[in-house]
């Protein structure tokens, strides 16, 4: 399954910006589940500096700077990604009880496990709020397998939480999301991650895209696809396995991964500091086109 993705971010300013410094995490990853065949970043106005580097979590970062006066900044990432569909083929064989998975990451004995052990700790957006472990344990009774537990947790979040785009912002505390059982994909991902980590399991935040289908009989609108977020659990001797609590599915042929981290703050798709500018308007459009 191959997709072409076009992701545009546009900032419009009230006043002139004399200088901006930015960092973008917009290049799709190449991993067990997908291959990024090509990627190109177009920036308007033209940059006077652009460099790439790989961050702590192995995401590709594009650092750039614009020193010419401008009132509008447009960053467009165009990429082609192939989903391998084979990622979870052998997952059925993995029936490791969750406690065993927990004990393995608690005592990292390889460099890889050491890196993974970082994902069992609470982070800025995934604090262990009151009652969260109890909530999580309901899905992890006795020696249920890790995968089954995660599926159950994902389904519970899907059924018990209400999808409500206006309700939260990035600064809404997790405790409010938990108490009100409302939010968007980002909140659900953070919540699920906090649940899993509170039990000692390694879970990470995934940012990416999801393909949307138009209602039957209608044509797909341009820019209607969206940036998305879900979570991923580390299964020892297998690897990272993704779960999308917003849609109650295990990503397979419609999810493309951009970046991973402890939580949202590690994977911000585009961030920047501007000099001047005044009030700003932000517009994001994503197109995800099936190529074959």
């Amino acid at each position: 399954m191959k997709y072409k993705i076009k992701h545009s971010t546009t900032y419009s300013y009230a006043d002139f910006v004399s200088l901006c410094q930015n960092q973008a995490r917009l290049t799709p990853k190449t991993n067990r589940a997908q291959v990024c065949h090509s990627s190109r970043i177009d920036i308007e106005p033209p940059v006077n500096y652009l460099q790439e580097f790989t961050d702590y979590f192995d995401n590709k970062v594009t650092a750039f700077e614009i020193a010419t006066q401008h009132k509008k900044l447009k960053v467009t990432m165009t990429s082609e990604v192939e989903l391998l569909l084979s990622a979870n083929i052998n997952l059925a064989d993995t029936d490791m009880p969750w406690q065993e998975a927990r004990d393995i990451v608690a005592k990292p004995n390889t460099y890889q496990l050491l890196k993974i052990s970082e994902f069992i700790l609470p982070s800025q957006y995934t604090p262990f709020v009151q009652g969260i472990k109890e909530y999580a344990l309901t899905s992890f009774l006795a020696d249920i397998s890790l995968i089954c537990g995660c599926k159950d947790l994902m389904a519970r979040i899907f059924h018990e939480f209400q999808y409500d785009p206006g309700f939260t912002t990035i600064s809404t505390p997790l405790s409010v999301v938990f108490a009100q059982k409302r939010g968007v994909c980002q909140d659900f991902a953070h919540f699920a991650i906090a649940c899993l980590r509170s039990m000692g399991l390694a879970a990470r935040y995934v940012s990416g895209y999801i393909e949307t289908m138009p209602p039957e009989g209608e044509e797909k609108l341009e820019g209607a696809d969206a940036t998305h977020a879900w979570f991923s659990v580390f299964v020892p001797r297998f690897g990272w396995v993704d779960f999308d609590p917003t849609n109650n599915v295990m990503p397979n042929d419609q999810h493309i991964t951009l970046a991973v981290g402890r939580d949202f703050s590690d994977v911000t798709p585009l961030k920047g500091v501007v000099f001047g500018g005044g009030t700003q308007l932000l517009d994001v459009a994503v197109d995800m086109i099936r190529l074959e």
Partner: protein
Amino acid sequence: MYINNNAMPELPNWLSLYLDKRHGHDELADHSGLNPEHWDTLFNRLASLTAEDVSSRAIEITQLLQNGNIKSENNQQWHFDPLPFMFSRADWNTLEQGIKQRTLLLNKIQKDIYSEQKLLLSGQISPQQLYQNNHYLREGFSLPSDELKLFFTAVDVYRAPSGEFKVLADHCQCPLGLGLLLKNRIIARRVMAEEFAECNVQQIKEFLNFFQEGINEFIHYMDDPRIVILTQGIDDPNYNEHAFLSTYFGYTLVQSADLTVRNGEVCLKSLQGLGKINVILRWIPDQSIDSLEQTQYSLHGIPGLLQAVREGSVKVLNPFGSGVLSSPAIQCNLAQLSEQLLQQPLLLDCPKYHSIEDVKSSDWSQLVFGSYKDPKLTLDGHLDADKIKQLITKQPSDYYFQDKPAFSSAPFWDDGKLIAKPVVFRCYVLITENDIEVLPSALCFSYQNSANVKGAGWLKDTWINTSKDIDLTEPSVPTPIKKRMDVSLLEGVISSRTAEHLFWLGRYLERCENTIRILRIFIDRYTELAIYPDLIRRSTVARLLAAISAQHIVYPYVEQAIKLEEFDSAVSKQTAFALLADELRAGSIINTLHYLANASVQIQELLSHDSRRIIDEINEQVKVLKHININISSHAMQSILDKVIGLIMAFNGSLVDCMPNSNGWFLLEMGRRVERSLQITSLTGALLTQELEQAEELGLLEAVLSCQVSLVTHKRRYRMYQSIGTGLELLLLDAEYPRSLLFQLEQINQLCKHLPTKRRQGVIAAHEKAILLSKTSCYVTEKDYLQRTDAGIRKQLIEFNHNIRLNLNTFCDVLLLQYFSHTQTANKLNWTNIGQAQS
């Protein structure tokens, strides 16, 4: 016990009183060794001093400290003790070895943590504890590996009852106190010159040379390297220290807003434009150093700095991420880490750490309690026992206990006698290319206050005895000059911000001087009026009063016709008082002094010691002004004015010798000239534009000339022909007369030549055009033209003055835009969110 066994004269009473008492474990009584030669020499020297002598030295130190004191975090003064601390050669050797080993070890740990993490994998450092420490900076991994090496660190040590030295804390980010130590040493050498010589105290100069050479190592191949000291600015409690170090080493002092990143290089926004920076000595913590890349957005961050470090275009010292070395996750295991990394036992350890479950006893009085996650949390095992009990029930593995340190004490001169206070020594370490150097002295400090003296704490200079014969033959080796660059290139770099402050300092100095002159003359005139109440005097005072209260002739120089009101002597007094001491009134003397002092703090690293002393005195005067009230006598006001103008003159005088133009000092002169031009136009505009009786006019002219210190010149030059016209000619149109408007404009024109040109040759810049216009109008105007009246008003004079004012304003605006405008603040973009469109 201190044994006086070296054929010393009898100990003075003040000393033996101290030695006879027991003070816990004391440096002098318990730790001075069997043969305390190091103290003997000092006491031998001090033996002839009485208690009064020592007190008078303490007072001398206090006086020396008054100016430019480096204050503590909460803005309190340190007390410097007249008695130095003496280290024996043997003790110092032990300490030095220990510190070197510890620094080597920390350096190796830093390297491992930010690359291979072998120590985490082997479990010697707990990954969980480290990962949760907010000094562990993940951005460090994407930086070049040679950016990990420590450069300048400090370690706090104390002596345990056993006589061993123990470590209280490592400072691997921004080691504070070096400035304090230098200052302390300078004073100690002055007050105790003879003792210093006799005790063969090891000099610290060599270390400071190493410091500079160490920095030069990074840039030795460059032609025009620039080194800056990065501070948070005057709000930082340690700003004085940063400024002191900047002056001491000659590195430019900058704030985050002075720096910008372009094309992956860090640049200083200077008067000359953007200049590349090669080395940053950072005195701001690394968690908030890059407001773009780091999660914590900080106003003190420089967006893009880490990318520049990643590119290798700038060296940041100490390296990014070094704060983690002080975290308990690493500190608790240093002994083991030493065995592992150095194959040596650790010489200098900290008080023992205990995990919560290891502490079986419920008596925690000899322990302190801390958190692996939150470095700020420290609790006393005895006083905070309840709180600790609460905390450890939840997540015991997040916390630890540590043995409570038992500091040794040393004698401090407090209230006429020696008092024992617990002491800690802060030692400074430099990691050079091939070696580790320890500063042969330490900041010996005690936080214990006494009943009658409040302050930040007490400090002692620390003297390390060198063995005598070596010292005599050891010459002080001057630093070999390895630099190839042209030194003159380096001097001229000042930030646009500093340039702007210099300009304003010039304006405030001139404004203050002028306002004082006007006020003096005003007070003179209205007190005189009480004695000789004739009509002419009454008219002069009434006009001066109106011009002052409506701010025509004082800042902000309101341009309007004077509204005369009925003269009242009580109102005169009130107006005079308001101009002197009303903090709410713009342009009052107290306000101008306040601004003046602020501007000079901003550029204090460029000021000489004497200039800074005068600023301290000006601040004292501001305090005096705050406390006077309306009932003050005119006479008392005059004497305050005399005092302040004396200080301003002294400050001006102290600047003269330290003002090379290349450092931007010409801007101070420029500010001064601009302000004076404004004053001359406002004075003549407000007081001389109305046609009056000749005697009345001359009375006013006399007042105006006195305000501009030109009365005598005018009298001598024009004798019996004095008129408004001659006054205007002298004050406005005479190109040769140093107090005239035209002279100021000519000077400004000359000073503009020091500004870097941003235009092509042959084209005049906008600010120069404005000055040229004003100059020309002065040259082509005749005095009779200005003097001419129309319906009782000198319209031409009003228009002339108005145009000059317009041009001066244009000049200042262009200056701001072209040369000082780099002060734009950074804004954070609304970072894109996940699920922005829908999900």
